[in-house]
């Protein structure tokens, strides 16, 4: 599903060059639920951004679904993001001016679905996350946990094969965090591959496999399930 080989990412500012990822190699299989942990600043978000085509690596090779995505133009990268990848952010990132329905509608419009198809999908995912009654509420009218469920619904509406979550429970209390985690596990059971960055060791342990990133590299590989398959360069 995802295969990175010797991926490098460095950020250059006026004075210093930060190597956020160095010779980063990792493989994630179809249907896996991988948790990513590591100290702050170790490169977890950078890894997710590259995996989700939000950023381009400085070097190395990245195959998404067998396709080398290094040389794609903005249009194709946008399309791939839209069709194959769902994003869940720590800060929910719902659009504050749009109600829940319209928020979930955003990626579907970029997909080019017709109004009927979009409505069907939006209603379905709202139901899945248990917020059908709130379709016309604004994000600000919801609790953090509810907002994150809407964000998950938005990520799911396009039926992506690959879900990337950057500390999705970071802003939630433990009860809400557990609900969100259960939702993600449920989604994973239905076949969606999930990579989740988290600080919560309990949640990390619930994934099939946990990866630790230290200093821009995969540090420790612990097989947590039979599905996990360690790969090193």
């Amino acid at each position, binding site marked *: 599903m995802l295969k990175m080989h010797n991926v490098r990412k460095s950020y250059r500012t006026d004075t210093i060059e930060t190597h956020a990822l160095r010779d980063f190699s990792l493989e994630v299989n179809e249907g896996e639920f991988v948790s990513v942990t590591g100290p702050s600043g170790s490169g977890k978000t950078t890894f997710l*951004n590259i995996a989700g*085509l939000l950023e381009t690596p400085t070097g190395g090779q990245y195959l998404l679904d067998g396709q080398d995505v290094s040389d794609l133009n*903005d249009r194709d990268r946008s399309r791939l993001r839209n069709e194959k990848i769902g994003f869940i952010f720590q800060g929910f990132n719902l659009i*504050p001016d749009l109600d829940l329905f319209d928020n979930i509608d*955003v990626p579907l419009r970029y997909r080019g679905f017709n109004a009927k198809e979009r409505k069907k999908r939006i209603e379905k995912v709202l139901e899945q996350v248990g917020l059908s009654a709130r379709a016309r509420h604004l994000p600000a009218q919801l609790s953090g946990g509810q907002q994150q469920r809407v964000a998950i619904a938005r990520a799911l509406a396009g039926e992506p094969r690959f879900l990337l979550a950057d500390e999705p429970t970071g802003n939630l209390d433990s009860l809400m965090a557990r609900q969100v985690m259960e939702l993600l596990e449920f989604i994973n059971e239905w076949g969606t591959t999930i990579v989740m960055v988290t600080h919560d060791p309990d949640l990390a342990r619930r994934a099939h496999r946990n990866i630790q990133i230290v200093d821009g590299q995969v540090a420790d590989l612990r097989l947590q399930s039979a599905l996990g398959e360690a790969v090193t360069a």
Partner: protein
Amino acid sequence: MLELRPILSALWRNKIAALLIAVQLALTLAIVGNSSIIVGDRLDKIARPTGIAVEDIIAVTYYPAEAGTDIVSMARADLDMLRAMPGVIDAVHSNHIPLSGSGSASDFYREPNQQIDDEVANVYHTGPEFLQTLGLKLVEGRNFTPADMETWNPNDRYHPKVTIVTKQFADIMFPEGNALGKFIYGGGDNPIEIIGIVERHLGAWTSWAKAGSVAFYPSFPKFTFGRYLIRTEPGKRDQVFKAIEERLAQLEPNRVIDMQTLSERLNKSYARENLMVKVLSAVIGMLTFIIALGIVGLTFFWINQRRKQIGVRRALGATRTNISRYFLVENCLIAGSGIAIGMAAAQIGNHFMVANYSQPALPLSVMLVCALMLLCVSLVAALVPALRAANISPATATRSV
């Protein structure tokens, strides 16, 4: 895929700023619409055909050194000399300079001793050479002949026998178009025969409501000053101007001479119109510039405010084009509503201008052109920020707080 509904609902939640720009656009359109119609009106006025070869004419006015000088014979000598000069096509005496803002007018009637229903015309005393000198086009009848010429003393009453009039005045006096050969009266019982009709002569006062109603008499009043109009070959006016200055000084060193070109005089006559055009054009330009700045500023502000959201949209699959288009469409919606209000405001403003300041009416076509222009300005103004917005990295979704 224009995302109209979500853009509208997002706009609705930020309506104050949108409304401010829309109202500013509306006001701009109302002012620009009404100003441009006035500018257009003045430009039309300036561009009106005068019927006269303005570019090639020099006017000479002089005051003899000694009182009692025989102006008529002095003029005959001067004019003979002037006509013989190289570069001069013709020359004629005239009591006033056309298009100069100074002249005289008389009342005319269709019947002898009529008291009411007079028609006014601008009047010139001149000679047969006036057609060629002014470049007028005789469309009916005949020119004056030397035999028509009369000299008269300003203390006596002059009773013209014949006149040449402009077509405009001929049609006012005789709307059936059969003025030639008809008689008109100056209030008494002296009949004046219309012997010729010239196509056009704008007369003395460019802003006069009756400008273009002119009558010419074949006469030479013995005023205390003399005045000549001289037509030069095209392009030789300034050269001939200097030569005339020298020759007249040579001929009679003691008289006071004032020389002007007709173009100078006409420019002075249109000074108000020219000023109006300049001021209003500046106003139009300034307002358009200000609204453009406002739109650039507001769009930048909004884009900055929504950096995170733009990043999220990009992360969710928006292309750069999607992002730019979002802001352009949003701008179009604001501009469109502002312009709609502005069209209504312009019409109301125009009714007021028409009613109180006798300004021209604002036709829909001009309104639409102004609206379209403003829409283009607002789109161009929004384009730079909108293109910049497309450069906001999708990583903004995960990076910034």
